[in-house]
């Protein structure tokens, strides 16, 4: 009997202290958003906590869309201060922000990120594909004899006689992933528009509508969100290719090599100057109403904007970020330091 009383008392105390705890206010910075920007914010957060003695920021990886939901939820301690995004904010998301009173937002583009197609080093062929060939291998619908039809290709040599006669087997992220969105937009739709058939008969809008579907009959395999798993499966099967962020290729270059796209291999240089075609800009968004309210937020942004972090040779580049040019960095710094409000997205 007495232990029941005790437990009740403990719960009561816990409940009271819980209420007290929220009343105190948040001391840490909260960041949500894209899993692609996550490692960079992670690096800045750790350095910021080590160098300044502010409490460690809470860095959560929710995906770009999930991050916007939380970020645009409102102003106040319950809502995140910063959200990372592997694409720019959509009009619908901006509208949601405005609806909840989040109007003063600064948009910061911190650099770019490359997507790589990789294959095991045990594979002897020097792979070099065009985006059109990538589309023919992975698109759900392709032109066959002048008709828009189900994808009939099962081996690489059917697409280009120069390729080996191995089965098409590509492991990639599922539709919930931002990496998948980026791959579809940057590789599939672009590749589709390079096809003669599409070029002659259709325009870009048509391609965006019709070329975004990956094939589901076997050659493209959704391997889940875990990129390490894809790396392991590539190491086990030397004919399989994998799609993931450039940082995973960089960390595993002893066992994996890149598939060149139109003759260009992914590297920090080719991604930064845009000659490697599958690269995308990375952003984060700052809720300016929280600046000066959440302790350390301004110092955190200062660390994020520092040359140590953003410049070529900085610690974010070492994590796989492809840095901006000098002028763009200065402009970004200016923008963030003065909390310049982004233009409304219509």
């Amino acid at each position, binding site marked *: 009997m007495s232990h029941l009383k005790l437990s*009740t008392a403990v719960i009561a105390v816990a409940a009271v202290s819980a209420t007290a705890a929220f009343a105190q206010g948040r001391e840490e910075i909260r960041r949500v958003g894209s899993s692609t920007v996550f490692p960079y914010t992670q690096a800045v957060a750790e350095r910021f906590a080590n160098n300044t003695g502010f409490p460690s920021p809470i860095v959560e*990886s929710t995906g770009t869309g999930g991050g916007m939901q939380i970020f645009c939820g409102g102003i106040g301690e319950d809502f995140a201060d910063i959200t990372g995004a592997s694409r720019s904010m959509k009009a619908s998301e901006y509208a949601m922000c405005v609806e909840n009173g989040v109007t003063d937002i600064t948009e910061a583009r911190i650099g770019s990120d490359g997507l790589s197609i990789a294959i095991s080093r045990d594979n002897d062929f020097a792979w070099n594909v065009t985006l059109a060939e990538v589309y023919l291998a992975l698109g759900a619908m392709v032109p066959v004899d002048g008709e828009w039809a189900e994808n009939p290709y099962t081996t690489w040599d059917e697409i280009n006689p120069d390729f080996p006669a191995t089965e098409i087997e590509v492991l990639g992220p599922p539709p919930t992933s931002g990496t998948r969105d980026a791959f579809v937009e940057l590789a599939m739709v672009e590749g589709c528009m390079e096809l003669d058939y599409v070029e002659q008969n259709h325009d870009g809008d048509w391609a965006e509508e019709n070329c975004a579907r990956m094939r589901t009959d076997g050659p493209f395999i959704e391997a889940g969100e875990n990129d390490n798993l894809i790396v392991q499966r590539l190491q086990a099967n030397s004919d399989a290719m994998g799609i993931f962020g450039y940082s995973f290729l960089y960390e595993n270059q002893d066992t994996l090599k890149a598939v060149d796209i139109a003759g260009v291999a992914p590297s920090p240089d080719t991604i930064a100057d845009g000659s490697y075609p599958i690269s995308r800009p990375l952003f984060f968004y700052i809720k300016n109403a929280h600046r000066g309210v959440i302790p350390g937020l301004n110092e955190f942004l200062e660390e994020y904007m520092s040359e140590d972090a953003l410049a070529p040779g900085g610690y974010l580049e070492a994590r796989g970020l492809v840095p901006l040019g000098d002028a763009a960095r200065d402009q970004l710094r200016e923008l963030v330091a003065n909390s310049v409000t982004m233009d409304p997205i219509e």
Partner: protein
Amino acid sequence: MTDITPNDARKASNNATTEAVKRSLARRNRKQLVLQGFGIGAIVIAFTVLFILVASLVRTGYTAFVQTHVTLDVYIDPAEISEEGLPRGGFRDVLTAAVLDNLPGADPEEDARGVRNILSNGAQFQLRDQIVEDPSLIGQTITLTVPLSDPFDQLNKGGVRRDTPEDQRRVDNQEMAWFDALDEAGIISTPFNIGLFTNADSRFPELAGLKGALVGSFWALLTCFLIAFPIGIGAAIYLEEFAPKNRLSDFIEVNINNLAAVPSVVFGLLALAVFIGWFGLPRSAPFVGGLTLALMTMPTIIIATRAALKAVPPSIREAALGVGASKHQVVFQHVLPLAMPGILTGTIIGLAQALGETAPLLLIGMNAFITSAPTSPFDAATALPTQIFIWADSPERGFTSRTSAAILVLLGFLVMMNGIAIYLRNKFERRW
């Protein structure tokens, strides 16, 4: 005398039965053998799968239980670090100089940058904290053991293979030569990785530890226990001992059994909507995680408690009632103490399940990256399974083995909790 006597008839029919039994005996024996074979086969398969799982975890994870360190004589140069400047100072340069002292071949100007990367990024903070605590060290030479950075740690453990061509290796030939020089100087050591348990998370594999996750899991389980245990037992006692047997109590029983089978992700969504959305509790907090896990554990505890109460023989109740005890006294002074071992066993198994639960915690944001351990149940934190989830998704090599190591730690805790449950059952179990 051709009449068959009753005796003979019995004998004949007995013979016939014996014959029939004999004929079927071989078949029945064979069936029994087959059944036994299937049974042993099933056990062998189960154990093989378990063995493969654990063996593969140990194979990839054992390297994370040791960590490559280097022991340096560090001269705390007053030109770099001054007492007034603390906590800022050239800690990294001081450490780099100490490494360069051991590398006669390296040029202090040109190679400083490369040599700096041999040490973990955490080394400078370790030195800083030591000097901030005792500023009188400035100007002295101290001996310091600091971790190496991940590529060199991997080189030492064999994660980076020396025979791969240089351009495909994370550590180039020059860096490898430096490492070998340090190794020859006898200052490289590979002690047990205490940091795995005493450090919070980090983006550097060599610094990342489970402290945040362990503390987070502890707070979450404590909350879960404090809520699910009393409420679960209370509900079970009422349903078993006091509730009238009618349609309503049947309906409640069916629902509790169903609740025990609801997928955990549903509880996560519920928690997100109710605890965080409606009550405004903080995201990522172990307290909210504990509330969510309590919802999941409660049906398990109710079912286990009811089974334990049912197992107490009616004679105990009747005897107590017979000497004039009230229903309340019967339950709390006689039945409940006898049922306690069973209740505790069920509770611990329920909590062990809760410890390994991931999906609901992901939904309430307990998968955040935080470089310090929580100090209260309301601070943001991770839990063991979500920490495994974060590490499994990190690109660095060092995290591959740390993921397996974290799984082994989690399995260790589960085995321990189940062991306690078995011990309690064996020690306190009473047979009637």
